[in-house]
């Protein structure tokens, strides 16, 4: 009987919303929070592409945020998205490989989700097409949330708060469609670019960078350093898949896992370098501990691999140049 009562109440709430009748204050707030808003985009970044079925509203972002931090998404309610994408770690986790349910570990390093709205595809190998569908990834993954999207929906339907929040945000009861959209809607809001480098570039603040950082910048964007060929644009990535010569034999085949092409073995999506100072360890498998290690890797030209990018070559940098490069990378950290 109680659920019938609830059903009618929810239905009436819906109707009130739809008919735009000015009800009590709460109704007005819900309606306000259902207005399509714009993501706040800092100077230097373009407005991201947003799917038409998931335009941002306050209610959607709020719901997505609540879900992102809620272990209800994991099999034993022990792990949430935020267990591996921590807000105070720029939505990465500073572990070599992340830890999921039952303390299980995967094989890849968790990337930062800051500015994930701009990723044209998901994961190190680009195997998943967008943020909405990506949400299914960690749920299916036995080393992460190890759960079942339909069972999550059942739990959300029985929850004391979620049914109303879904109704407000997506005008529906909890569903796979709505919960994947809500989380994606929240993730898209994680847009940020307010580093000292941005201050230097966007505001022309000449004193924002030190001399060493400026020398590092020049090296980064020069044919001598070569970094900019792959780490280019406002996010320091061209989103291409490249083999940067880490291994002679890759344990993780990378892009080849998706395409089955031998020529894609060891190719991974070029990662953003924003906030890279704060998201150690590095590379798809977290195998390099520090930025110094990364620069030493590039300086050595990496190891031989048939798919290694031809522009990954021995650089012969001086130790001062290496320090400059590291210092430049550290100027990309948001405030």
């Amino acid at each position, binding site marked *: 009987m109680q659920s*019938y009562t609830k059903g*009618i109440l929810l*239905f009436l709430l819906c109707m009130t919303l739809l008919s735009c009748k000015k009800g009590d204050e709460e109704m007005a707030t819900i309606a306000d929070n259902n207005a399509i808003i714009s993501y706040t985009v800092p100077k230097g970044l373009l407005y991201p592409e947003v799917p038409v079925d998931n335009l941002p509203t306050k209610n959607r972002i709020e719901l997505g945020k609540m879900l992102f931090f809620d272990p209800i998404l994991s099999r034993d309610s022990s792990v949430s998205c935020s267990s591996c994408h921590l807000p105070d770690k720029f939505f990465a986790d500073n572990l070599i490989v992340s830890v999921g349910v039952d303390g299980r570990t995967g094989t890849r390093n968790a990337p930062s989700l800051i500015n994930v709205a701009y990723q044209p595809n998901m994961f190190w190998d680009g*195997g*998943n097409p967008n943020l*909405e*569908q990506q949400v299914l990834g960690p749920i299916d993954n036995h080393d992460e949330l190890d759960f079942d999207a339909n069972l999550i929906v059942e739990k959300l339907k029985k929850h004391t708060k979620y049914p109303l929040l879904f109704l407000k945000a997506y005008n529906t009861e909890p569903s796979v469609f709505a919960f994947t959209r809500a989380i994606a809607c929240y993730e898209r809001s994680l847009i940020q670019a307010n580093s000292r480098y941005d201050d230097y570039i966007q505001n022309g603040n000449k004193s924002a960078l030190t001399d060493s950082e400026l020398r590092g910048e020049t090296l980064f964007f020069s044919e001598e350093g070569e970094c900019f060929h792959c780490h280019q644009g406002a996010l320091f990535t061209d989103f291409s898949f490249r083999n940067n010569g880490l291994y002679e034999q890759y344990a993780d085949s990378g892009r080849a*896992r998706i395409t089955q092409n031998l020529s894609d073995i060891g190719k991974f999506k070029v990662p953003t370098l924003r906030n890279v100072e704060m998201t150690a360890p590095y590379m798809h498998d977290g195998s390099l501990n520090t930025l110094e290690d990364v620069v030493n890797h590039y300086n050595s030209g990496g190891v031989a691999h048939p798919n290694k990018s031809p522009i990954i070559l021995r650089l012969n940098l001086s130790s001062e140049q290496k320090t400059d490069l590291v210092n430049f990378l550290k100027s990309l950290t948001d405030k």
Partner: protein
Amino acid sequence: MKNLYIITIAIIASVAVSACKKNESDPAPIIPTQTLVLRMTPKIGADTLDFASTHITANNERYTLSSFRYYMSNISLIKNDGTEEALTGKVFLINPNTSDYSLGNVPAGTYNTIKFSVGLNNELNHGDPTKYPVSNPLAIQSPGIHWSWNSGYIFMMMEGTCDTTDTNVDVLTYGQYSHDLFYHIGTDALLKDVQVSNAPITILPGVNKVVQIHSNINQLFVGVDLKTENRSHTMGSMPLATKIANNIPSMFTIE
């Protein structure tokens, strides 16, 4: 309170129905049509599939099964004169809990071949599974039959255990072998077209038709050494997945 709820629903339903009324008048059908149902029966040799017993391949290798599901799409019926009746839009997830799959109304006549695909075409395969209503076979299933890490459906999913020791000890003790057996077959390249024409299908006006189609699971193991070739997620073991997929078309016969 309950009545009020029902009345509310009734009102919504009646509004919805009246809103959906068709305006155009359907032209009268020239050929009578009749409902056709496919009764899909997985078999192992002469036995019906069950998830409790030990099965034996043609090579005398022992295995058990816990799951066997596959997508059937792109279905059409072909007449003697070669004309093809495409049953567009029908997608089934064939699973052991359901035996009958309705193709709806089909023009009466005699067909010598039923054609279908095991798997999904490129467009369906890479559609967004979160967009389907729960009742649709392409919606996220429990247990799942969609890959989120490379975004595509598993066309055929078979899971169980197999005897890699030839001792039969563990199965006698635990009811299953200690070695996993699973084939998760998918990717666009492994979409398989099937033609079954061992018996004609005659659909008479006024007589509901049920066509029984056997799928012989042992056929999947032709040329496969179960001792070593017992696991494939397709990606990472493409040669084995291709071998299994190539065995799919010969699995089917009309009873």
